[in-house]
């Protein structure tokens, strides 16, 4: 491989990107193959039929618990916090006291939000007040 390409500071990011993408695809494919191979298949007709008296039932649309959205939101909160903290930590000395105060403010505001979510029971499954 050419020297100039590998010395680029973003080359590592590119490699990580490729590996992540590959790993993601591989994981999903492996999971599907494994479950197909391991699951007990029992395709008796009477078992697959819908149990319902009277009219033909229609398939319910797939329902997703709103709890997932709350978890996604909370995950996003801390995800963004960490993403913001990495470059800050790298340039900590350059940013000086001003950067330190800014980050303390940032963490404090998020901490209030976190404690709020915690006290409201957002971290417990099916127990929102």
């Amino acid at each position: 491989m050419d020297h100039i390409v590998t010395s680029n500071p973003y080359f590592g990011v590119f490699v990580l990107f490729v590996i992540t993408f590959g790993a993601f695809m591989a994981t999903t494919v492996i999971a599907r193959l494994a479950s197909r191979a391991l699951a007990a298949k029992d395709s008796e007709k009477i078992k697959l039929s819908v149990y319902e008296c009277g009219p033909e039932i229609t398939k319910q649309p797939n329902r997703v618990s709103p709890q997932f959205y709350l978890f996604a939101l909370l995950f996003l909160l801390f995800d963004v916090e960490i993403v913001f903290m990495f470059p800050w930590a790298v340039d900590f000395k350059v940013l000086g006291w001003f950067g330190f105060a800014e980050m303390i403010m940032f963490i404090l505001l998020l901490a209030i939000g976190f404690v709020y979510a915690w006290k409201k029971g957002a971290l417990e499954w099916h127990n929102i007040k």
Partner: protein
Amino acid sequence: MLSPINVSMESLNLMTLAPMLIPVVGALLILVIDIIKGGLHKSLYVVLSLLFLAMDFVAVADSSGVFMANGTTLGLFDVMLIDGLAILAQFIIVGASMLFIPLAMTHKRFHEFSYPEFFALFLFMIAGFQFMVATDNLILVFVGLETSSLALYTLIAMHNRDKSFEAAVKYFTMGALAAGFFSFGAMVFYALTGSVEINKIALVLAANGYADMGFVLIGVAFFLAAFGFKLSLIPFHTWAPDVYEGSSAAMAGYMSIVPKIAAFVVAMRFFEFLVHSGIVWLDVVLYIVVVITMTASNMWALVQTDVKRMLAYSSISHAGFVMAAILIGTTQANAALFLYWILFSFTNLGSFSMLWVSRQKHLPDYQSSDHSYNKFAGMIKTAPIASVIMALFMLSLAGLPPFALFWGKLYMISSAVTGGYTILALIMALNSAIAGYYYLKLIVYMFMKEPVQGNDGHVYVANATLALKTIIGIAAIGTIFAFVAINPILEFVTAFVYNSGY
């Protein structure tokens, strides 16, 4: 190795942030109080919100003193811009919010006020509006717009009726579209000029003589759509009547004032240099939008059977009326805009509060909707004082002298005449006459019809408490005695608008 960055605190000028930080701190305090000790009565949160809004008002008054002494100030890496427009708009925003908050002290129990989050979101929303007006950086405008809009959608949905959810979802979809248009317009101008600050955009565009006219027009079209949604200008008004009907009457009155003044200020900053740049196309489009918004919404208001929907269409018409100031673009017109909106906030908040006081939980048989006209039939016989106050607000909205909005309309139309828009002035005057019809229709119902069987007049004050009566009293006094304060307000407003160069 890079040398450490030194940011001097003086250059940040943190005082420019103070008016926005006060409501944010208040909102966080309310959340923390709720975490530590839940289940407190709403009156505590009402008083806390009022306290922080009063502090906010003092901070804005302080920055107006700084403006009078030193002129426009910049702060926080020159992102904040505290000029006359920002200060005037913040006065209106915080003042109207202080009039709104006591309306939560209703006699009946309503779902939304039992949550402290209502008050926290309300204060966050005010901070968002303040950020929106106190900058000419399009990114900060966008952040303020989103902060305030997302809080507002939630506040509407918290009213917890089927129509409220419908209103919130409609407002959210339309608002999201508007936010998308806004950011797309900002992107076009950033691509053209390499800056997101409105004054730099104006400088660069003037320097190259509007060479890329096509792209400027695309950007302006996006911005016009975005502001059209926020100001409910026709043809972007479709959400407004449904949203006003779905939200509580107090919230609807608030929505007709505060979000619009914030959008007016941003529109004024943005369209002013374009109007003066001599692009004929923009003048024509603004002219058509203003005339259609005034006239068509008046026509729709004529045929409404519900007073709240009528007031919704009337406030669209008022927004179109005031949008004419941005088309005219003179200092006099811009000052008239602020004068009009100060007077309008008293009158409109007062009339929506009258509907809020008469809010029922269950509809009787003779009513098809919450505030149908026949609910108010014969109101003078059963609730004389309330009906006189309601009539007062209607006369003011119609623009009859000597009530508040007469002066607003007078200065707006005279600025149109001196600005050379004689035909526009004529259309504005004609529209005021048409609007008189549907305001007087309510007065005819209240004063000349017989009460509906089974209506003993209790309904008109069903929700009244001392706090609500006080707010209506303040609004009524502001409406009746406006003529005393017109000259000082106009001088104050004109000085602020002129000294910030608009």
